[in-house]
């Protein structure tokens, strides 16, 4: 076993609760009516290209990305477009969605639906990036940043290492873990594809040490693959953060306000890598993903392969139904996931899990005065001072917050997690970021 690596500064270690780690991936069919949001990524919204009443096939383009930092959305099901309307989604607001009445499962004939492994990569570098962009692939770890943007290394910069993020540092979630165990062969081809697209010769798969079976499995698979290695990592949250992972594996620090490629590294999630394999080798756009449904009182914690657009209520039903004592439903993990107010919202490209928190753990304890214990400062992986940033948010001193580097915050939530006085540190830091962001935009407009 190799020496364990990790990032040096900050971090916490919440209880892991990987309840669904032993549940193999099940394919979950979907029926009825589904809503497909046209914004499932960071960046400019996609523009719907289908009409009301139109029949669509699985894999057909529903909405086209506008501009470079944007992503296409494809039909994950076949059927008739009921209408294009605003529907609640994970953002907590209503957003434009294409609503489809499902009828059968009629796939676009261009898509290769066989399960045979296609190892040989015939596509050229440009073709790969083109296909990834056409397939609407976004970062599937949760950030949903369009993948083709990351594959397009800006002029004057050079990537020398590809890091595959199999860390899954969020407690409870096991989607990536199962993916590495069950789809390892395809994943390795996916890595080759991304390496070709980036023109790098080294790729490192970072996996936390609490998934020894995944580490063993991938180590075996990559034994004959020159340039690809598996790096076990010490269990520490937020190791799955891009900057933390780069630091842990290469020791390089992404400069404040810079991009990973500034230090020659590009990070892709394992889910994204698999999607790239399917897009390039099988012509399959991003229409399904693996979602963990878990929680302490969930009857059957599971990992499902579901079509985008499946309502999360269907996933919860398949995992044994909504428990009696449900207090909170979170899309994603407990540290960075988004709590939702209703259950008919659809799975999107960035939904890595559905976490059901029982009522007795769903509430925040009353806020007590700050005792200045400095724990938030010591756990902040970005070297910020959360207690100060919160105060600056409360007293609306946003210029100072900007000087205190609030925009570096990755919103990992370690500070709120550790605070013994249960202060809503991250809530106010988000307010800071919101206001500072507005200030920066205003300043930019003024400069124009």
């Amino acid at each position: 076993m190799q020496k364990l690596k990790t990032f040096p500064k900050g971090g916490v270690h919440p209880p892991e609760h990987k309840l669904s780690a032993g549940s193999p991936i099940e394919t979950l069919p979907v029926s009825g009516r589904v809503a497909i949001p046209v914004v499932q990524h960071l960046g400019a919204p996609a523009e719907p290209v289908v009409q009301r009443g139109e029949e669509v096939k699985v894999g057909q383009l529903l909405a086209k990305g506008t501009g470079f930092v944007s992503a296409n959305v494809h039909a994950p099901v076949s059927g008739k477009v009921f209408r294009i309307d605003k529907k609640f989604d994970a953002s907590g607001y209503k957003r434009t969605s294409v609503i489809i009445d499902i009828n059968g499962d009629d796939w676009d004939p261009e898509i290769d639906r066989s399960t045979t492994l296609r190892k040989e990569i015939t596509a050229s570098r440009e073709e790969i990036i083109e296909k990834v962009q056409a397939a609407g692939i976004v970062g599937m770890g949760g950030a949903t940043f369009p993948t083709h943007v990351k594959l397009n290394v800006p002029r004057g910069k050079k990537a020398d290492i590809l890091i595959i993020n199999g860390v899954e540092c969020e407690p409870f979630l096991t989607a990536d873990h199962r993916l590495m165990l069950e789809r390892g062969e395809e994943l390795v081809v996916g890595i080759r594809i991304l390496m070709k697209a980036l023109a790098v010769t080294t790729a490192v798969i970072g996996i936390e040490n609490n998934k020894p079976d995944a580490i063993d499995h991938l180590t075996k698979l990559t034994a004959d693959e020159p340039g690809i290695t598996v790096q076990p990592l010490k269990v520490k949250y937020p190791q799955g953060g891009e900057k933390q992972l780069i630091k842990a594996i290469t020791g390089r620090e992404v400069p404040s306000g810079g991009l990973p490629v500034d230090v020659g590294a590009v990070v892709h999630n394992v889910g994204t890598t698999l999607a790239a394999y399917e897009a390039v080798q099988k012509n399959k756009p991003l229409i399904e993903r693996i979602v963990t449904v878990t929680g302490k009182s969930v009857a059957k914690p599971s990992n499902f392969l579901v079509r985008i657009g499946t309502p999360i209520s269907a996933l919860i039903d398949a995992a044994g139904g909504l428990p009696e004592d449900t207090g909170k439903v979170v899309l994603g993990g407990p540290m960075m996931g988004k709590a939702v107010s209703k259950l008919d919202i659809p799975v999107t490209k960035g939904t890595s899990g559905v976490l059901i928190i029982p009522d007795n753990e769903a509430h925040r304890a009353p806020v007590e005065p700050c005792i200045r214990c400095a724990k938030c400062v010591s756990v902040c992986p970005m070297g910020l001072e959360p207690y100060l940033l919160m105060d600056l948010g409360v007293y609306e001193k946003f210029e100072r917050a900007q000087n205190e580097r609030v925009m570096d915050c990755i919103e990992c939530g370690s500070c709120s997690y550790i605070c013994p006085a249960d202060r809503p540190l991250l809530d106010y830091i988000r307010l800071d970021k919101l206001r500072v962001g507005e200030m920066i935009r205003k300043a930019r407009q003024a400069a124009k």
Partner: protein
Amino acid sequence: MDKLLTVSMSPHAHGRDTTPKLMLGVVIALLPAWAASVWFFGWGALYVPVLSVLFSVIFEYLIAKYLLKKEPSIRDGSAVVTGLLLAFTLPVNIPVWILAIGTLVAIGVGKMSFGGLGTNPFNPALVGRVFLFISFPVQMTSWPLPKGFATADAVTGATPLGLLKEGMRQGEHVANMVRELPTNYDMFMGHMGGSMGEVAAVALLLGFLYLLWRRIITWHIPVTILTTVFLFSGLMWLINPADNASPVFHLLSGGLMLGAIFMATDYVTSPMTPQGMVWYGVGIGLLTVIIRRWGAYPEGVQFAILIMNAFVPLINMYVKPKRFGEVKKNG
């Protein structure tokens, strides 16, 4: 669905640390020192801290309820820690009425007048102690000598540092005073005159290890204070051993251990960043030795900590943690 879902911002998990738990941890860390003081000073060392804690909690409750008119927050346990720490800095034969005044000043002036937990600039226990020290110098400096657990009547005498100061004032050579001073081993084990909680260095170090293990405090403040005192006094001792006590003597005597481990590390009144903690610790170490060597009082830890407490906002303002990504673009 009949029940409404709760929605809040992430994170949706919370660690197990709470303010009362941290305070309880500090109390547990103080237990060895308490046991040692009961061993050395008898029953008095058992009930004085209990009384002190009782007074502190009652005063905090009354002040919060009737003067500040807010919900009393004695549940957080900080008053218990303040009361206990104050008692540890007093001689065991302290009259109860002086103890009551001390806790009133510690809680009322040191803490509640600034708005309660989290807002006081100075360590409340030290505020109480310094107030008593200046107001009642006779009672506060008649240190009982440890006579063992069974002895009822304690004999009072000076602390090792008091002896040293007195001797130097009379122009005696430090080397000549060594006979009167306790041995290093005695001081390490706590066999010397002094306040209740400060005598047994070994017990305090045990508490320190517990605090580190529970991650209640980090090593920065105590280690930098002790290192600075050792190096600075050691330097002077090397230059002029006749006029200066040995660095080991400085480390083990007086309230240095108690101050470095429990007083200076008080959350509210210490800096927020590791870098700031180092500056703060160095400041306390230097000031302690300076006051001990050249000041009017034999002991300087209390004043050193209070002075550095005043610098904490400044340290927090200017000493920032190393930001992630604050590097020259590499490559």
